[in-house]
């Protein structure tokens, strides 16, 4: 069997059609059903009949589904959908927008609370950080205790020794072994201070400025005592 479900014997050979090709206008008129078998070009009378039959009036069995179609229409017709909309909202359920408002307000409150929290935390942080800074001038003389404060006053390299009670740790009894243990890390500058503290030097990465901690100024006075 050949392509299109046609037996080869029935198939006209390619390029050897039994009928002449149609011009566009005639083909259009045939397709539109405006050419009957009697008016058709030679060889196309049968085609004209077939096309007119294919577009022919409805057979009775083609209209048997009208009741089913009308049932679909009754169930889904546009006017019914339009009428339903207000009914869905009417019985106590607010409009989606109206329901959305409290959510929006609550969300706004949450945002406001979060912002207030951030501001408060920032204020606390500033307040906590302020005393050491205020005490900087008094501890500006501390570099000798650190020994490594060769940089500018505001530089990070200087700040580390200032905040780290190196000399205090060295003066304390349990401390002596620790500087040697922390020897390699002491190259990073000022880390020797961690030998005395349990916070550990690992908390501060090299190159990062240490956080100003309010507790640290306290040992200083002790040391000065």
């Amino acid at each position, binding site marked *: 069997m050949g392509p299109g479900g046609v037996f080869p014997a029935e198939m006209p050979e390619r390029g050897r059609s*039994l009928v002449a090709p149609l011009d566009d206008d005639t083909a259009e008129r045939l397709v539109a059903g405006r050419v009957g078998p009697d008016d058709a070009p030679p060889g196309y009378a049968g*085609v004209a*009949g077939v096309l007119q039959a294919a577009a022919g009036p*409805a*057979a009775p069995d083609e209209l048997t589904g009208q009741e089913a*179609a*009308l049932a679909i229409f009754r169930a889904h*017709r546009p006017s019914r*959908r339009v009428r339903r909309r207000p009914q869905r909202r009417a019985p106590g359920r607010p409009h989606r927008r109206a329901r959305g408002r409290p959510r929006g307000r609550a969300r706004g409150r949450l945002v406001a609370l979060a912002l207030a929290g951030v501001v408060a935390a920032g204020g606390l942080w500033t307040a906590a950080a302020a005393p050491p800074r205020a005490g900087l001038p008094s501890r500006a003389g501390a570099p000798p205790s650190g020994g490594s404060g060769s940089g500018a006053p505001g530089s990070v390299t200087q700040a580390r020794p200032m905040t780290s009670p190196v000399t205090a740790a060295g003066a304390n009894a349990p401390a002596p072994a620790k500087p040697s243990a922390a020897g390699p890390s002491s190259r990073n500058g000022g880390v020797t201070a961690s030998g005395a503290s349990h916070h550990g030097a690992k908390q501060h990465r090299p190159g990062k400025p240490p956080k100003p901690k309010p507790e640290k100024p306290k040992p200083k006075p002790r040391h000065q005592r």
Partner: protein
Amino acid sequence: MIGSSFEAVLGAAAGGDEAAFGILWRDVQPGLLRYLDAFAPGAAEDLASETWLRIVQGLDRFRGDERAFRGWVFTVARHRAVDRWRRRARRRDELVPADALAGLPAPDDPAAAAVDAISSRAAVALIVTLPPDQAEVVLLRVVAGLEVAQVAAITGKRPGNVRVLTHRALRRLADRLATDTRVRGAV
């Protein structure tokens, strides 16, 4: 075709008027069944129902003339048919009842189609024996009454390609009718 009153009929149907919808349905349904029956034998009624459901759901949003309406209906129908074909393709091992096959005419038997030579069903059966792309183009143009541009949009082809397919289909039909004496005599 409904003609000049189409706009009023469509407006009434979109407003929920059953009689107006009935007019639309009776005008389109025969061609719809013939088109669907060509590609989904035995399922044309179901696919037509699915198509009408979509049409009813979108009726109030449709804007256009009668030709555009028909184009929309057949576009939806084609999508339904393609969806069904894909579902079937996924279930290849589905058993087809033998009695369903017995009722189908052989697709390559023009003589069977010519038994009631001039009936629309026989004519469509003969058109379906064409290569699928030619058959679809002819059915959309003849049965659905669509323009070349609409057929091109529905089938995803260029208008020039639709014209070429139409020419080939007509010539092929003519050759087949000329070579089959039984069909030639009947028509």
